[in-house]
């Protein structure tokens, strides 16, 4: 198990990482999710021993390894930029960590071929990395990290430079490869959809702070605060200021007195009357009716973005700008008035301090898988 205990990092008086506690189990996949400069890379470097924490301790399997440099720890890293030895073949590249650790030729051959098979590199083993596509080069780097059987594997946006189709396929395969290895995997990404496809656990990062850590799907569905909900939303989270008044939320910004309201769903019935922020995901806004009697709100269309299987329609409601998910290709003309339904069963409510109201107990991070 890798533990960060009260770890901070300050550089030149600037706080890069606020006090952080994290415990990552063996055989687990842990996603660090946050925008650029939120602290993902710094946190990884602290985990690897490439940086020493300003305060706090790093423990590995109960042993204090704070300040133990990366060379003396069994760590593998894969970066966004593909890093391979250009003069070696793909085979030699994958074999290199095994040679360094003095494995026998038989073991090396078996492990290299197994990793190559997993990464679909078998036809390219005799080629040199630079003659391969970006995807193949990155898979070579991934294969090298996997054969190393490191106890900690750090992947810093490893798929960011690849075609999205290849990313799609590798995202589906990587969790299988990870769960077979028994290492602790830490995977940094800026993309919420990537975290969801990978599954496992997710720590959301915002301005050097871990805002929440738990099972990925649980953090997505039950964010403890608005910061986490926003970090875990792409396209941006839909929000609207509102006032709870008995059985109704009066949407505060529509400009028409009391005309725009939503019924309070059962899971939010216990929260107190007063001002709050309502939030919901794009797929909870739709042209169709998600359930019988779903409330509808008037919106004005802005622009439609088409993602192949789905489309994201940007709309406004009063002063609020929202995004609605539509199935298939949906290219609505701008400036149309339409009524859309809100799936209030998934509505989230946050208090003025940004904390979730009517909290659902979040699931613990997944243990060994």
């Amino acid at each position, binding site marked *: 198990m890798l533990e960060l205990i009260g770890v901070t990092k300050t550089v030149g008086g600037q706080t890069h990482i606020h006090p952080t506690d994290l415990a990552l189990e063996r055989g687990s996949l842990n996603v660090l999710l946050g925008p650029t400069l939120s602290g993902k890379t710094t946190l990884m470097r602290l985990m690897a021993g490439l940086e020493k924490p300003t305060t706090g301790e790093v423990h590995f399997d109960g042993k204090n390894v704070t300040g133990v440099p990366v060379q003396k720890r069994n760590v593998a890293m894969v970066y966004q930029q593909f890093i391979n030895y250009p003069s070696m073949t793909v085979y030699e590249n994958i074999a290199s960590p095994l040679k360094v650790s003095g494995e026998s030729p038989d073991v090396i051959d078996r492990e290299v071929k197994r990793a190559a098979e997993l990464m679909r590199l078998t036809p390219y083993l005799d080629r040199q990395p630079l003659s391969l596509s970006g995807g193949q080069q990155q898979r070579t780097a991934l294969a090298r990290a996997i054969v190393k059987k490191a106890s900690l594997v750090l992947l810093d946006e490893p798929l960011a430079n690849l075609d999205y189709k290849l990313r799609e396929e590798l995202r589906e395969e990587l969790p299988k490869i990870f769960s077979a290895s028994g290492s602790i995997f830490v995977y940094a990404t800026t993309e919420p959809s990537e975290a969801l496809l990978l599954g496992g656990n997710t720590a959301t990062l915002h301005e050097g702070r871990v805002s929440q850590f738990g099972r990925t799907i649980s953090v997505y569905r039950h964010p403890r605060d608005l910061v986490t909900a926003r970090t875990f939303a792409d396209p941006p989270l839909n929000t609207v200021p509102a006032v709870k008044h008995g059985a109704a939320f009066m949407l505060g910004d529509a400009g028409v007195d009391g005309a725009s309201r939503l019924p309070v769903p059962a899971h939010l019935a216990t929260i107190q009357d007063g001002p709050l922020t309502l939030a919901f995901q794009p797929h909870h806004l739709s042209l169709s009716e998600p359930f019988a009697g779903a409330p509808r709100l008037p919106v004005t269309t802005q622009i439609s973005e088409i993602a*192949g299987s789905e489309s994201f329609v940007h709309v406004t409601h009063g002063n609020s700008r929202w995004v609605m998910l539509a199935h298939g290709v949906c290219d609505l003309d701008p400036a149309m008035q339409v009524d859309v339904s809100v799936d209030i069963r998934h509505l989230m409510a946050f208090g003025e301090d940004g904390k979730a109201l009517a909290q659902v107990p979040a699931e613990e991070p997944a243990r060994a898988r």
Partner: protein
Amino acid sequence: MARITLEHLRHAYGPNPASPQDYALREVNHSWDDGGAYALLGPSGCGKTTLLNIISGLVRPSEGRILFDGQDVTQFSTEQRNIAQVFQFPVVYDTMTVYDNLAFPLRNRGLSEDVVNKRVPEILDMLELTSRARKKARGLTADLKQKISLGRGLVRSDVNAILFDEPLTVIDPHMKWVLRSQLKRLHRQSGFTMVYVTHDQTEALTFADKVVVMYNGEIVQIGTPAELFERPKHTFVGYFIGSPGMNVFPVAIEGSKARVGGMDIELGYAPAVSANQKTELGIRPEFMELSRSGMPVRIRKVEDIGRLKIVRAEFAGQPVSITLPEDTEIPAEPHVVFRDNGIHIYADSWRVGREA
């Protein structure tokens, strides 16, 4: 603005090309409308960058001609073609202010400060850079610098076309939403002919009126986003557009039936296929429904990705993906139903439609 005609273009990087495999770009013969928004979409190595470089004048095609509004520009340099380009990585002058960076393409062409002072603030406003106008470009983040590059591409109003080469690669996802919508709005406002190269389906489908899908040096389909999603002409289009892509598996065609693993799927028409062709059935994950009746299916894994569930299953011995809405229950004894309008038959990878 110009209409762009690609006349029997072919390109090989090596000398003496003999077979189609020797061509990075196989025969392209198309005409693109003045003021249209086109995207060249495909994986790396598909030939899209070669085609873009032929349009911009960086590469002379081995065969064929390129015309702007009927004028042969095949031998023209990039500058003579009068086009603006935005590249994958930012091209900005660090020592200049944001304002001067945007003014540069105008001043370089000898336009008056009146024009500069009218045009630059418009672009600053559009890209939400007004507050940084007087700051030096040095020290800005990569995505701000790339916004400046976009602005430099958009600032001139006298260009024949604007070419974009994967311009959003370095942009954070949160910012991509903003820039994608801004580019689309900008196209509608400006009426520029724009050609946008990308491997990202969302960027291509959002931006373009017509998407040009390329595969192995060939254009496999030119169509509106809806056409590409609803009626992929080639199995590659089915695979490449949509996430997950279209399920494609081999079938035997017998009259109006497709037979796979002992099951018959009624097509409602008899596809015109010949006996020696490889025949396949394609159906997108969105057009398959799990239910209590229908054809049996074995579920291997259910991935909950929040807004939907991706069911990885085995149908008649073939791996398939099925997508279901967030709150769908998975039946205990699952069966699958194919929605009629989602079934496509392919012969040697090309669609054989009802209308064919």
